[in-house]
């Protein structure tokens, strides 16, 4: 083979080391397969390494490549007890008050899409990251990176929808920043928002809290934001009656948390979709997750578009849906609280947490089979046939 495929050599050397450390015994087919599977499990638990020399689009997809980059580069450098849980918001003590802090950047294309635009997305996303940590969102910052030549009318429109979204969520934008870069150095308009909220309840809603027996609830039909964006890019020539689900979830979450004390974990299902959240539950809590495909709410439009494109709605982004892990005896109360709110009218129990197999998400398919729902490496890629 030619030189240059050094990463292959490196991967193979690593494999050899691993293979030597686990001596092979003569064994039956089933035992050998089990040995291989155990070896894979060990390989999956090893510290992640970024093998690429350059950032690829996969590093921004929210899947395995993102997690590897975050752990190998960012956590490696910044590691501290507040950061390391990698929850949606950090929980801090400031002069005796408990505060949640989060930040997020928005680079959506197109900037305007059915059901919203980059402006309300930038407010709702950060509000939601605070709300799922159990905080009441209060104040946001907004940083704009604008490309030379960007129409002021578009910026005004984006800012107006940020204002409306902030009012709807009950937060204020209290500080900001503006930068302009040369034409071609950015794609119109990027926004970063950071947010602060207060933690009024003594609750911890991290995914590591999940326990066997807990039920898993989603607050509504999944994948609507992601499919809307794919269609709005106009590359697919599919027309569908679908709008983004972008919405502030703090009202819904307040209703949920006041109705029951049984909520163990909350996440909003953004990049990587519900499948990625379920994997985070399984990995962080060291539990199994079993979900029932029949029970997962998916609109006919999202299902149809996903079938055509060969993608799985479980991995498609939402911007106004949460995943809740709830103690079994509180499941009915939690479901009723969610359904009592307009944003949770179609909430549904989709599965449960189990002791076995730790770290894995299993899906019972509507067809009656079972399969693993793993993290994707990068963005879902359409299949060619």
């Amino acid at each position, binding site marked *: *083979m030619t030189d240059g495929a050094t990463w292959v050599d490196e991967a193979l050397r690593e494999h050899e080391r691993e293979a030597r450390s686990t001596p092979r015994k003569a064994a039956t087919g089933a035992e050998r397969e089990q040995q291989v599977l155990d070896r894979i499990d060990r390989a999956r638990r090893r510290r992640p390494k970024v093998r690429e020399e350059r950032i690829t689009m*996969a590093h921004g997809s929210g899947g395995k490549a993102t997690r590897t980059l975050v752990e190998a580069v960012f956590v490696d450098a910044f590691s501290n007890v507040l950061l390391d849980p990698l929850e949606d918001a950090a929980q801090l003590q400031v002069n005796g008050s408990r505060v949640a802090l989060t930040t997020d950047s928005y680079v959506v294309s197109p900037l305007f899409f059915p059901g919203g635009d980059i402006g309300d997305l930038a407010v709702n996303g950060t509000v939601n990251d605070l709300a799922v940590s159990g905080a009441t969102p209060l104040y946001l910052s907004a940083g704009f990176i604008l490309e030379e030549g960007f129409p002021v009318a578009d910026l005004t429109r984006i800012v107006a929808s940020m204002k409306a979204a902030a009012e709807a969520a009950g937060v204020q934008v209290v500080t900001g920043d503006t930068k302009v870069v040369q034409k071609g150095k950015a794609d119109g308009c990027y926004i970063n928002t950071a947010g602060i909220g207060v933690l009024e309840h003594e609750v911890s809603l991290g995914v590591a809290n999940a326990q066997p027996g807990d039920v898993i609830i989603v607050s509504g039909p999944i994948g609507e934001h992601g499919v809307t964006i794919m269609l709005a890019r106009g590359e697919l020539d599919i027309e569908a009656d679908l709008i983004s689900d972008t919405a502030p979830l703090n009202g819904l979450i307040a209703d949920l948390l006041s109705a029951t004390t049984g909520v163990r974990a909350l996440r909003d299902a953004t990049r990587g979709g519900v499948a990625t959240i379920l994997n985070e539950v399984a990995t962080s809590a060291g539990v199994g997750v079993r979900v029932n495909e029949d029970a997962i709410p998916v609109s006919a439009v999202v299902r149809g578009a996903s079938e055509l494109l060969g993608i799985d709605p479980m991995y498609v982004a939402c911007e106004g849906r949460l995943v809740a892990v709830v103690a079994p005896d509180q499941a009915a109360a939690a479901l009723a609280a969610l359904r009592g709110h307009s944003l949770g009218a179609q909430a549904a129990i989709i599965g449960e947490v189990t002791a076995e197999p730790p770290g894995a998400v299993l899906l019972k398919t509507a067809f009656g089979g079972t399969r693993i729902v793993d993290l994707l490496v990068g963005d879902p890629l359409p299949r060619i046939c």
Partner: protein
Amino acid sequence: MRFVDEFRDADKAHALAAKIADLCEPGRQYKLMEVCGGHTHTIYKHGLEDYLPESITLVHGPGCPVCVIPMGRVDDAIALASEPDTIMTSFGDMMRVPGSKGSFFDAKAAGTDIRMVYSPLDSLKIARQNPDKRVVFMAIGFETTTPSTAMTVLRAAAEGLTNFSVFCNHVTIIPAIKAILDSPDLRLDGFIGPGHVSTIIGCRPYEFIARDYGKPVVVAGFEPLDILQSIYLLMVQLSEGRSEVENQYTRVVPWDGNLAALKAITQVMELRPYFEWRGLGFISQSAMRMRPDYAAFDAELLFQVPGVRVADPKACQCGEVLKGVLKPWECKVFGTACTPETPIGTCMVSPEGACAAYYNFGRLHRRRVVEVSIS
């Protein structure tokens, strides 16, 4: 959803599974190959193996378009894309396929202009919008995608586009099946025939498999019940000692194929004397190239193609997996050195690849945690 849900009915699946189990002779092992990667994907996505008795093994065949592309062709494509003023277009599946120096995604990150398209016709749009650039379409796939490439070239010719060309890697399924049948280390009982390929070539080309090799073939659709019914039809043939070509996918596949599509292919392309397949080596008359009449659209003539030959990494056993000799987990590097994040072999790249499908969807099956009970 219409045309989908009726083919995923669990009750019908249970009924079919019982009939299939009844047809198994005690003590006999059955190895059935699904030729097409789309079938492999369906089998894992829906957990179809849960319905099969242990005596039936599904062997995943070579019909995954990106899995059979040799590393050298990926390197060639990246070399083409790196020419000045060039835009390369390709299907999404192709983006992560590793060459010896990385994938399209890596090349893109290093500054090469490689764009994902959903149809080859999108490449024409890009060519029209960028008259000062040369747009090269990385064409891959079996007979399923070949007609759309041919139609795109015909459209480009009709429009008089001069900045569009095709790097043709289209392959044909029959020589690959024949190579597998002639492989000494393999014993198959029957074939689940590729559905979408057959919409183009029809069912007749498979007759030699039944006649000369005595193996039954059932051309199958892509929904889980299609595949289960095809396995049932294969088992009926085997139990009656017949070997015929049957068409389960009649709602889509005409017995004689799609004559208009075949005509378009023949007009634009001709068979290559030989072509290298990943893991299977050189197979004669197994791939297409542009006819001399359409040389103006042939990237291999318009550009300097390095023609790299890269041997597969020694530890990689894609060939054995593609032939069905090894199961994915039996490959030496499966799941440790070779994973979906860092695929060494192409079988690990596409969701249709046998290894990626097994890694993503099938790993836990073997642990017999099949029963998922949710109240």
